[in-house]
């Protein structure tokens, strides 16, 4: 089945139809979510009551649009804050890891590499509860021993950031490592020959080379953090990120305001991802 080998017309047609059907399947849920954001009805379902922008801009009950819905705006802010923290941390640690595994040979390297990959094969919910259990063991120990109640170790944003960081770092490490492996080390040696110190050479030669991968890892980490659900669900405190807020709304059965948020999310993350691809192509 390759183009250079002729196949019966019927087979080719059937194959094309299957692939087309697959893409319809992929697009369908997203398409209906977007379309019903404009339905002038209290429910995101049929019948179609006419077109409206009210779920975006409405400012009076019963139709309050996204841009006037305080809890949702606050949740978007929380998610963005968590996402930035997670991306910064995981790109920093991921870069260190990439240098470590590419440049150094040491004992236990193989074991550490496998350990580094493990978070990818641990279910998110298990990561969440293990961190929850450990942090409260720590918090209780400190409270019994010294009488301090450390707020950061109780469910809340700090734990959410740590929980997401614990597996997103693996992905950042893999993305950055892949680029560092392609780096020609003689360039760094040339810098050293020209009198640069080790750190200067890394800063002026290697890091600029790594920049596209680091930015890519940052964007991927941000998107993963923004849409993470399982780990966050177990660690969340009173400030809920967007996915948790939307989940609570969805369970109650919500107005099309959720469709409007979803549409904005789709547009936002597509722009971010397209921007990243364009940037990667350029460099």
């Amino acid at each position, binding site marked *: 089945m390759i183009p250079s080998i002729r196949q019966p017309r019927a087979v080719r047609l059937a194959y094309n139809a299957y692939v087309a059907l697959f893409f319809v399947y992929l697009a369908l849920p997203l398409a209906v979510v977007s379309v019903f954001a404009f339905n002038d009805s209290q429910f995101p379902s049929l019948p179609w009551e006419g077109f409206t922008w009210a779920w975006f801009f409405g400012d009076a009950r019963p139709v309050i649009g996204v841009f006037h819905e305080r809890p949702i705006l606050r949740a978007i802010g929380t998610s963005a804050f968590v996402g930035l923290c997670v991306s910064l941390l995981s790109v920093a640690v991921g870069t260190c890891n990439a240098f470590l595994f590419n440049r150094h040979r040491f004992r236990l390297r193989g074991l550490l590499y496998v350990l580094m990959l*493990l978070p990818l094969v641990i279910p998110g919910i298990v990561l969440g509860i293990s961190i929850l259990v450990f942090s409260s063991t720590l918090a209780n120990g400190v409270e019994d021993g010294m009488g301090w109640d450390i707020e950061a170790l109780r469910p809340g944003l700090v734990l959410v950031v740590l929980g997401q960081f614990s597996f997103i770092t693996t992905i950042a490490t893999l993305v950055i490592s892949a680029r560092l492996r392609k780096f020609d080390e003689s360039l760094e040696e040339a810098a050293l020959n020209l009198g640069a110190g080790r750190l200067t050479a890394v800063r002026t030669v290697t890091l600029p080379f790594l920049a596209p991968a680091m930015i890519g890892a940052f964007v991927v980490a941000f998107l993963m953090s923004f849409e993470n659900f399982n780990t966050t669900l177990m660690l969340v405190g009173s400030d809920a990120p967007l996915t948790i807020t939307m989940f609570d709304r969805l369970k109650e059965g919500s107005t099309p305001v959720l469709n409007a948020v979803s549409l904005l999310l789709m547009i936002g993350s597509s722009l971010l991802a397209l921007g990243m691809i364009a940037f990667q192509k350029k460099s």
Partner: protein
Amino acid sequence: MRAQSRLGLFLLLTPLLLWLTLLIVIPHIDMLLVSLRERVGVGEYRTSLANYLTFLTEPLYLWTFLRTALMSVLATALTLLIAFPVSYYIAKIAKGRVQSALFLLCLVPFWVSELVRTFGWMILLRETGVFSGLLQWAGLVDGPVEMLYNDVAMMVGLVYTSMLFMVVPLVTTLESLDDSVIEAGYDLGGSGPSILREIVIPHAMPGIVSGCIVVFMLSLGNYLTPTMLGGKESLWFTELIYSQFIVRFNWELGAAFGFMLLLLSSVIVWAVLRLTGQTLEKTMG
């Protein structure tokens, strides 16, 4: 120079070790310890296997565990079956711009949250939803049909949610298969199916394995899709963990459940790697 390199190694090792010990290794050990604890009085605990015994003797728990495992295997198999022809099309048949456009289109749904995707399926499948409306409009049914809250709806959602993680590794491995190898297969008298069996699938094996592992893990650990799309009968093991931790506040039993889930996923991942002769470093790294 040597001393400097040792210092560098030490500095680079520190974040890695902090991350792995404080967020991965110790929390899991602590979770194991908590799961081995039995509450005998207020604030009094003793070490015992009581939580694991509860897990094994309560039919609902064991049944949900086995069901979750089997349904995840089924979801993985379905995802592979659906994704393989599409990945082959993208990697071998589409060319140039069409190829990159199709590949990009596959990625798009996964830039948005799983919640949004699940929400989309709810709008499509529910009683007042799009499919029900279409069927009524076409005159095929008389009243609204509820297609949500059953195993089929849940399976559709699970397959949809993990599709990307199958398509990307498959396309990557299939792209590296040279067309001339397939041509040679035809020249030597091979037929479509025999070439698929003896050339294409063996070549794509690393991609199939890594795709299957990730999809299986994602299905097993999924909470959102079974909760939102599944019915009362389709209880998922993660829902039990959640209810022990957050609703009942029985952390000891919840930790035991968490550990069983971890054990199940590790055993299956290990077995798949073993059977296909792959390693974690090769398939993930």
